[in-house]
């Protein structure tokens, strides 16, 4: 059925009775939520949300799969990714080295759009499911090739309890522990 325009009348309210009942309804709903707030706030550093598997968090390089095609650096909308040349052992003659290109990333610029992950022809890049990491200075946000291959430390996970937000019909979002308690 195709969509259509529907002209609707504005619901009118007036009169003393409606005035009293509307005031009471507003007060009642306030008191209802005062008694049972149904809140889903996360006490952040104490608890932290464990995000879904498909979340576009930090991007990590799997160097073995990289074929140096530079597609990731070219698609990057914010020019966060650059290719650098590093010497690697020659595939046939181990004593020689050859120059090969690998991507490095500048997390000051990255906007986590995930285009680089999607364009990589060999799936050498992948997302981890977190992005809340604090750096003490801007220089640390330039990742060199070694850093880019390791999943970054996630200090929040060491301090906090992982929780997960479930969509719930009554509560909207419901905070549940993400994992069973250890022991």
């Amino acid at each position, binding site marked *: 059925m195709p969509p259509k325009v529907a002209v609707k009348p504005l619901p009118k309210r007036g009169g003393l009775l409606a005035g009293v009942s509307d005031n009471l309804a507003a007060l009642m709903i306030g008191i209802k*939520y005062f008694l049972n*707030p149904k809140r889903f706030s996360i006490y952040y550093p104490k608890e932290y949300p464990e995000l879904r598997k498909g979340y576009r968090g930090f991007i990590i390089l799997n160097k073995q799969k990289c074929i140096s095609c530079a597609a990731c650096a070219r698609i990057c909308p914010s020019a966060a990714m650059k290719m650098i040349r590093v010497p690697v052992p020659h595939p046939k003659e181990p004593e020689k080295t050859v120059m090969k290109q690998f991507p490095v990333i500048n997390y000051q610029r990255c906007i986590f759009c995930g285009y680089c992950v999607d364009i990589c022809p060999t799936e050498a890049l992948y997302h981890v499911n977190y992005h809340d990491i604090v750096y003490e200075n801007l220089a640390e946000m330039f990742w060199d090739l070694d850093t880019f291959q390791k999943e970054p430390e996630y200090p929040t996970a060491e301090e906090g309890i992982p929780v997960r937000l479930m969509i719930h019909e009554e509560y909207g979002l419901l905070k549940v522990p993400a994992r069973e308690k250890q022991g």
Partner: protein
Amino acid sequence: MSVLDTVASLIFYPPIWQLLILGFGGALVVAMVAVWFERKAAARVQRRIGPYWASPRLGGLMHLMADMLRYAFQQVVIPRTVDFWPFIAAPIFGMALSILPFAVTPLTSNPNFWPLPPALMEYSLLVALAITTLPPIFIIVSGWAANNPFTIIGGVREAFIILSYELIAILSLFAPAVAVGSLNIVDIVQAQGLVKWFIVLNPLAFLAAILAVAMSTSAFPFEIPESEPEVVAGPFTEYSGILYALNMGGAYMRRFVFGLLISLMFLGGWYPIVPGEGFILGYALPSLVVVVKAVVVVLAISFLRAIYGRYRLDQALDMAWRLVLPLTLAGILLALVEAYLGIF
């Protein structure tokens, strides 16, 4: 008589005790609790947590302490364009006059602990209400002295609101006095006794009083003079630091004073405790009951912020003259009928 005795007698001299220790100190604590409750209650209705991290076990009560400290030590910026002396003096006088009604409000029926000599207590209600009308003048002065479009609009709005709602507040608080036939707060409370509270006998005046207090002291949803989206903070736009805190605290103090008066006039004062002899029975317990009732009134007003939005200025004035003033007059009429029937 040693020095210590002199000092002790000076501190416990009722006007000083009630004004400085109970009035200022107690009202500061009450203001803190009221602000905290306002934020916590609103947070519950709004499905948030509210203040928490400053002291998780106290539910974030220390947030308010931190706020106060911040205000106390913040730099006071005084713009070049303001009228210096009125700008400085207005919040100070406003605050001082806001807490002055404590000095004439009796919190017990034991004459030893009245703040004024018994002869003067005859007109305690009149004096208390007269003083409560003074602080708004200084809000208007501060708005005018700050010399800024927003402060002047805010000051004018304050004048409008005060003109209509202060009248209602005073008239509705007079209704019990009309019924009892006395301007002595102690007499009125004694007349109410254990059951004949005016909240039951005269709910019209009580409702009008609550509305008028919320409006005239700019409780949150009704803070038309300080309405943020148009006039940044109304008369207080140019204030910072301790002067801003005085301005804001003044409003809470006034609300607490009105809360005290409402609890005495309508909620039976120190009843169910009958004041006896001695400090504990004669003063501490009854005044505690009165203060608790006043705090409940203040908190009930605070709770409304989570439910209602802000009226427009003309709508608020319209409501005052068309709805709340007739309500008040009906309340006074009811009080006259009650006096005629001789309930007291």
